[in-house]
């Protein structure tokens, strides 16, 4: 290991990033950090049938579809890079905790592929051990043979870029919210809804139906967290708090809400139930995705949902 660090200047080390789970949330932060440090990286391709199939064979039955897909992406990266970036997140301190899969995925990956000579990049966030996000990045930089000041600079730049990208997204979504069409709020984790294989077909189909999809995950996180107490004051999970907080933020600007989860997501099953019981006066559709193919069931549900919204609005002939 030390050899690689000393030789970092000569030997071009390559980091592999699985295009799954937190990649969708931290894409800019990670990529700009490595860019600033002149470190080469490779991101696994968009999810396809083969990645899902492989992930399903490596994962245990009970894990969620999103984690299965993650393992498929890790498998794709093996032998294509030197280290794979697999973050371990314990929790976000006062911001809330995370689902067990984010706490466990580092160990799950290293155990699942232990006989494939896999090397993982150390990235650990654990506020109780004073491993905050910045510390995690400094440690990562040190491991990659970069000086503390350079790593800190790279982290700050990357953080800024991440922030800019978020603001841009929110701005673009604001434009979509002002469109004079049927608008549907999608309450879904970014790693599900932005996934090419499981989430994107839903967005595409909603557009084909002539509606404007609004993503609950695109919102000011600070505002969303504050608003989440209108749905529940006691939710433990940060990501779910941010998501449900977008409901009070956007509810009056959209015509319907879709709760989309990957089977069998534990946090979502509880949170979706709370939402269905507590959010009234707007149509809500609960959509569960699993690896069984066949989009017919999903399309029937989406199509009828949009029809019902239009019947309600009285403009059913908008597009039949």
């Amino acid at each position, binding site marked *: 290991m030390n050899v690689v660090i000393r030789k970092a200047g000569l030997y071009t080390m390559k980091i592999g990033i699985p295009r799954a789970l937190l990649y969708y949330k931290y894409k800019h932060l990670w990529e700009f950090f490595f860019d600033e440090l002149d470190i080469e990286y490779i991101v696994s391709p968009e999810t*396809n049938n083969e990645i899902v199939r492989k992930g399903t064979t490596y994962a245990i039955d009970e894990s969620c579809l999103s984690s299965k897909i993650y393992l498929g992406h890790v498998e794709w990266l093996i032998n294509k890079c030197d280290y794979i970036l697999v973050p371990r997140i314990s929790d976000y301190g006062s911001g809330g905790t995370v689902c067990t899969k984010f706490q466990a995925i580092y160990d799950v990956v290293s155990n699942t592929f232990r006989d494939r000579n896999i090397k993982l990049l150390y990235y650990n966030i654990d506020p109780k051990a004073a491993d905050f996000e910045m510390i995690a990045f400094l440690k990562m930089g040190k491991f990659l043979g970069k000086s503390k000041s350079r790593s800190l600079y790279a982290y700050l730049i990357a953080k800024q870029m991440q922030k800019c990208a978020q603001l841009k997204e929110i701005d673009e979504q604001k434009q979509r919210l002002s469109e004079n069409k049927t608008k549907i709020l999608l309450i879904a984790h970014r790693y599900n809804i932005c996934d090419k294989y499981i989430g994107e*077909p839903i967005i595409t189909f909603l557009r084909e139906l002539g509606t404007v999809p609004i993503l609950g995950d695109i919102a000011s996180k600070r505002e969303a967290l504050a608003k989440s107490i209108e749905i529940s004051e006691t939710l433990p999970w940060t990501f779910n708090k941010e998501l449900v907080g977008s409901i009070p933020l956007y509810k009056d600007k959209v015509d319907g809400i879709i709760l989309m989860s990957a089977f069998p997501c534990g946090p979502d099953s509880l949170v979706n139930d709370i939402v*269905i019981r507590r959010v009234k006066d707007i*149509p809500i559709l*609960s*959509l569960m995705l699993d690896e069984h193919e066949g989009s017919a069931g999903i399309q*029937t549900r989406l199509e*009828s949902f949009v029809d019902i919204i239009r019947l*309600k609005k009285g403009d059913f002939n908008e597009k*039949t």
Partner: protein
Amino acid sequence: MSKAYLGIDVGSISTKGVVLDENNHIKASTYLWTEGDPLYAVKRLLSALKAQLDSSQDKIVAVGTTGSARKLIGAMTGAAVIKNEITAHAIGAMSVHPDVRTIIEIGGQDSKIILIENGIVIDYAMNTLCAAGTGAFLSSQAQRLHINIEDFGEIALHSTKPTPIAARCTVFAESDLVHKAQIGHKKEDIVAGLCKAVVTNYLNNVGKGKKIISPVIFQGGVSKNVGVIKAFEEILGMPVTVDTNSHLTGALGVAILAKKSKVENDFCFDMTDIEFKTMGYECKKCSNNCEIICIYRENEIIDAWGNKCENGAIRKSYKN
């Protein structure tokens, strides 16, 4: 010669057809088993409908299709409207019972609830991918008990003390059922318990958090089961109406939609003599390996679907 509208509802089990005149009166209707071959089922359906009509009097100007084979049959008949069964059922039920407030529907694999106020759909919900508490659940339990599904409801009516059965999941229900039978519960009590379980399951899952207001219409295959009707009336404490034509509601709804669409095409019953066939193949152009289905009319391709990306798109040489 007067205009007429044809609605076809092709489900997994049965195929239904309705011909309407301009005042939404049923001029002809047929109900037959799909028997796993929707193309042949529709040919038989068309012959049966043709026999009921006076071809010098009525001319079909628009066709609507619904049900799980709606796309296939829509391509075959050159339908003006291809609509999901949920919307079709809502439209159909409202045309027969304009004052309806709640539509309960339990089919072979789907169950849904539609709430209506002043002739406008205000809310709706559908089961998630799990088929617990639907027709499939009842028919598998009927098989286990060696009872004809047609007699199921009648047997349940003989019970004075229904056996409580856990119906959250088909697998659990089955083991619970075996256990209850082994410790000496009477068969009619178990059957009545199953009917009750379907209702509680429906109300806890699909009807969760929804306010059910009279008049209530119950439709779908399970509505033919008097045991379930009785259990609904007992638990809801209000009368539940089941229309004798309830099996035709979907076809009726889509015929109305075809009429509303104002799209008119020549339609000829002679397609019973035309050869239609489908062929499936696996697209190997990318790692998704999509299953593509092609529809042929006299060996000419008229439609194709199943591709997830543009690579697999097949050009239609002839579209009816």
